[in-house]
């Protein structure tokens, strides 16, 4: 009978929503893995390699979270999301955390019900142009056609930049990164604008990378950080302190290679960090070896940076703002104590 089926459906929906009320950490533990939203097509940050394995700085950040929660960096499920899909996917609990080059902004934290943790990459927006265009500065782009990804802060920064300098421009907005790149390299646009790190990645996949150059102007601040939902403080703490642990490990000189030797260290900070002196992990609701597992399986922030985007990779990005504060950069972990 139809009405009966309807009643059953209603009841099961009610039951399901009641179950979904538990905290993110409990959900994650029950599932046995962390659902992480990543870019999926951004070289150096989140993109499959030739063997189909996800690689990148954001991917390693996600693995560090899994290592902290499960003691196993492989317990991650990656969901590739476009710029437009990413925030709704997090809001609707499709994913537990978003590690996808997302800029922390005021409106996202207030209007969208999200919380950003410690940034894993400090970026800024720039312009990539063909050398044949013969310009040396972004101030010469009056009247240009500019390729841009939709639904990003990029779109607004570019609009602000051109407005502030009294210049005209027309955007070509294509959702798919690969299609946008194709259009740019075929000459549809005079310039491509995005975060500097992305432009470096885009240039490295150009038919002739030497034919393109980055203009010197950096027109915005882009603190790219992992994101969680508002209202789950425990989960926020776990993701935030995982980022802190990555930075702290580099500061303390602990690497994936020497972490076992470091267990014997007499330095109280290191002992606390690695769980030799117990307590820190418990406060987060995790094992006391949480930080040990992160460093052992994923490495410290410096290792992640060098492996994915550093000077020895095709991206060849210098540490710059992303160096430790002790080296003049911005990477600064609050004390783990």
């Amino acid at each position, binding site marked *: 009978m*139809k*009405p009966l089926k*309807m*009643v059953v*459906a*209603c009841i099961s*929906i*009610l039951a399901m*929503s009641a179950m979904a009320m538990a905290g993110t950490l409990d959900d994650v533990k029950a599932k046995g893995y962390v659902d992480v939203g990543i870019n999926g097509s951004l070289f150096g940050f989140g993109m499959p390699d030739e063997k189909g394995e996800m690689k990148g700085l954001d991917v390693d950040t996600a693995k560090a979270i899994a290592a902290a929660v499960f003691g196993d960096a492989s317990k991650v499920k990656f969901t590739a999301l476009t*710029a*437009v899909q990413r*925030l*709704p996917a997090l*809001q609707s609990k499709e994913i537990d955390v978003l590690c996808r080059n997302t800029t922390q902004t005021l*409106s*996202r934290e*207030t*209007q*969208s*019900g*999200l919380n950003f943790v410690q940034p894993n990459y400090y970026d800024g927006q720039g312009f990539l142009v063909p050398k044949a265009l013969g310009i040396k500065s972004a101030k010469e*782009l*009056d*009247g*240009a*056609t500019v390729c841009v990804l*939709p*639904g*990003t802060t990029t*779109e*607004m920064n*570019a*609009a*602000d930049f*051109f*407005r502030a300098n009294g210049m005209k*421009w*027309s*955007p*070509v*907005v*294509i*959702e*798919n990164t690969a*299609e*946008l790149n*194709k*259009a740019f390299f*075929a*000459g*549809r646009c*005079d310039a491509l604008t995005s975060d500097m790190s992305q432009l470096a990645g885009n240039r490295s996949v150009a038919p002739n990378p030497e034919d393109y150059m980055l203009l010197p102007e950096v027109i915005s601040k882009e603190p790219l950080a992992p994101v969680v*939902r*508002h*209202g789950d403080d425990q989960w926020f703490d776990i993701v935030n302190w995982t980022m802190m642990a990555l930075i702290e490990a580099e500061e303390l000189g602990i690497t994936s290679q020497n972490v076992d030797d470091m267990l014997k260290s007499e330095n109280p900070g290191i002992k606390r960090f690695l769980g030799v002196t117990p307590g820190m992990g418990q406060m987060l609701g995790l094992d006391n070896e949480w930080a040990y597992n992160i460093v052992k399986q994923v490495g410290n922030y410096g290792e992640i940076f060098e492996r994915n985007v550093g000077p020895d990779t095709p991206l060849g990005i210098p540490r710059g703002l992303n160096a430790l504060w002790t080296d003049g950069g911005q990477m600064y972990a609050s004390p783990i104590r």
Partner: protein
Amino acid sequence: MTPSESEPKVPFWLDPGKRAIGFQIITCLMVGLLAWYLVNNTLVNMEKQSIASGFGFLEREAAFEIGESLIAYSASDSYAKALFVGVLNTLKVSFIGIILCLIIGLFIGVARLSTNWLVKKLAMIYIEVMQNIPVLLQLFFWYALFYEMFPSPRQALNPMAGLFLCNRGVALAVPASHPAYFQMFIALMIGLVLGFGLKRWVKKRKFTTGRDFPVLWPFLGLSLGLPLLVWVLHGAPMQMDVPELKGFNFQGGIMLSPEFFALLLGLVIYTSAFVAEAVRAGIQAVSRGQTEAAMSIGLKKKHILNLVILPQALRVIIPPLTSQMLNLTKNSSLAIAIGYPDFVSVANTTINQTGQSIEGVAMIMACYLVFSVSTSIFMNWYNKKSKLVER
């Protein structure tokens, strides 16, 4: 004798009629409850996650640029205006698309029934190939073809005076603005109204007196002649706004973007294959006997088509045609894949910048609902009008 007198009284729960009503009420209540639950649940959850709701954001500054617009728009305008620009862009590509689609579809559909073997087969190949390639792939293909095939603006092709082809689009010379053009538009409208009045009068006269009167030439004379007269009276302004290469791109004239062309081309080619099939089916649905009967009473060939075949074929053609027009409008939302700033594209950017996805998606749905329902209403009205009056 009424049946109730002979039958014993049935309790209401065994009366199929009353039971059916009861189930309807229960179903309505269930659906209502479910809807209320979903809406309430959404609102509560949004509140809990402190996601902002409401349409207040529409008045805030949009702060993003839009590539092409039918009205003046800049980044300092509101979200509401940005969304309106998107609506106009969707209407522009849908309207032109539907017109082209009807013309090409009619042509191919008739060609499909041609007695010429080559014409027939070519039409068949067109229909089969275009119907069966997903429209999204066609869009990528036309877009890539456009920017790969044409040179950069500095080496733009110039096949004729005032027309430039390059990978930034098609730059076209248009008459420079002059007060005459607005008056010419008014004259055109007056001409059209007079022309249709004439057509009615001729039809009426034919039914009452049986005498014929030519319609086509006076109609063309009125609708084209009047604007021409206005133009001559204004001293025949000839000033043209010719596109010129300035800086990065052409300035002046009108510029049609590759995104617009690729979208239009993809939608028209894809949908016209379906329209062609509808046209073919409609014509074939009219039995051969109708033509023979019309011939036997001595009607002229054009009268057979106009008075006998088409009125019957249209009955069959219009409903599938309506759904193809709706499909074209809805498929235009694929524009986001190739960068044409249609409504969905602008709404997506808005959603992303304000984070108000529920409001944004609701607006997208409402907008397409309005487009589709108004197309349906118009086509149903036309369907009723062209339906055979059966006695």
